């Protein structure tokens, strides 16, 4: 049995890569994918804790996180499409006015 510290370490590394993606990329779709990567790292930590404490609560929480992520992606991509229509760009540097 692999120690839980390995799983938590992997979750930390994936979360950091996601945070780095949010900080250095300009393409808003890539930033969005990095957010998904961070959510996924949190899911991995949840499932690892659920396994090692032997309770189902962590897995149920992951189920809810997946639902919220799906809703978030639907709304976020709709926003990106709307911004692209008015700005003809999805570069986050171009999004600098409140009214399109």
């Amino acid at each position, binding site marked *: 049995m692999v120690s839980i510290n390995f799983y938590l370490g*992997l979750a930390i590394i994936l979360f950091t*890569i996601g945070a780095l993606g949010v900080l250095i990329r300009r393409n808003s*779709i890539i930033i969005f994918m990095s957010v998904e990567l961070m959510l996924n790292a949190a899911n991995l930590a949840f499932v690892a804790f659920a396994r090692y404490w032997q309770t189902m609560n962590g897995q149920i929480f992951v189920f809810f996180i997946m639902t919220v992520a799906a809703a978030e992606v639907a709304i976020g991509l709709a926003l990106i499409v709307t911004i692209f229509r008015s700005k003809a760009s999805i*570069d986050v540097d171009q999004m600098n006015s409140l009214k399109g």
Partner: protein
Amino acid sequence: MTLQTLLFLVLALVAITSALGMLISRNAVYSALFLVLNFATVAVYFLLLNAPFIAVAQVSVYAGAIMVLFLFVIMLLGAERAAQAQSIPWQRPLAISLAIVLLLEAGFILLGQRGVVPMVTSELPSGFGSPAQVGTELFQNYLLPFEVTSVLLLVAMIGAIVLTKNEKK
């Protein structure tokens, strides 16, 4: 080294490499495909951690539905190769150093908290993580959050339709 440790390390290599590939690649379609690979390896981890239902949900919801939506929007907008104009010169080094600080901080906390992490036990109650047990838990202890989730999905659906509706004036 046991077989499971070896499997863990190989999968970790794939997961980290695909995450970095997602971060680095210039083409947004490649990024999305790297992310699919990453989600698939995490699904294998869920299987290793006795969570078969979550693993299947991960593949069908994340790697399937969500990533198809991403690819669809990338191709709809034609945003495969957005120009990476760097307007703030010190942004990238600052971001990388902040990420390294975050990594060290989290690693320090992980190594310092020896008492909190539970002991390794290999025997589990039978049926742990099976769809039947997930369903029982979901409809007995988590019934209200489950119902609220349906409202959330409905709101997301209406919101997406309203936002992308083409208003003819």
